[in-house]
């Protein structure tokens, strides 16, 4: 379901970011695009509102796994009161971070697939947001000899990759190793 009023949503995001820049003293500028043009072959996030940030403080946004960029996006989503299943419709980006991160996750997924095949043991990815976990699940869905699961809750929730016929008993054992 599309966002009912995308222009109103874009205006609220603009108001929010104007405050962040004016009061927060961050040297950032931003561009908000409603229904941004995307290549047809793009097989991941297709946002309805794209927010691109740039400026001297861009590196600050991308530090520690883009913590500040994700924080701004989360606050915007909460202010707009979008239900969780519609969060993908708003996307905050900076210096092409989203596309680079996508590549990184797909690469990590293929390395993990190799490793699980070779060792026969499960592989735990680092904790990730739901959006990033989804990318990993999708990247691994075409491997018929493997399966993925999300485990744990909250900030520790992460993807675990198993050989398809891996036994539950040994799965428990592997989870105790932290």
């Amino acid at each position, binding site marked *: 379901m599309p966002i009912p009023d995308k222009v109103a949503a874009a205006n*609220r995001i603009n*108001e*929010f970011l104007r*405050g*962040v820049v*004016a*009061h*927060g*003293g*961050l040297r950032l500028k931003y561009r908000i695009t409603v229904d941004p043009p995307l290549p047809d072959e793009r097989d991941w996030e297709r946002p309805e509102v794209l927010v691109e940030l740039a400026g001297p403080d861009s590196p*600050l946004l991308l530090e520690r796994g883009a*913590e*500040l960029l*994700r*924080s*701004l996006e*989360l*606050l915007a989503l*909460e*202010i707009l009161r979008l239900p969780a299943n519609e969060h993908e419709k708003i996307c905050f980006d900076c210096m092409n971070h989203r596309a680079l991160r996508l590549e990184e996750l797909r690469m990590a997924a293929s390395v993990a697939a190799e490793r699980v095949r070779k060792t026969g043991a499960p592989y735990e990815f680092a904790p990730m947001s739901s959006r990033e976990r989804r990318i990993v699940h999708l990247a691994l869905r075409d491997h018929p000899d493997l399966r993925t699961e999300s485990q744990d809750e*909250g*900030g520790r929730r992460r993807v675990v990759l198993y050989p398809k016929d891996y036994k539950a008993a040994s799965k428990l054992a592997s989870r105790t190793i932290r």
Partner: protein
Amino acid sequence: MSEQSGDLRALVEQIAKGLVDAPDQVSVNQVESEQTTVLELKVGPNDMGKVIGKQGRTARAMRTLLSAAGLRFHKRFTLEILE
């Protein structure tokens, strides 16, 4: 109170008002100490969950924003959410 750090009080107020159902019950009080500025956010009783968020995510996002902005002002900001 320095003019610049006063702006972060306004920022927290603006964001909190955007998050809650009752923006008229939002207030932010700024308490200065030598090394830290404490921003005390008060919201209406039914809006606590809105500013804290699932597993504290919303409050954490505000704190991340404050610490980034604090770098700019060479000051540490802490956010306290009061009942």
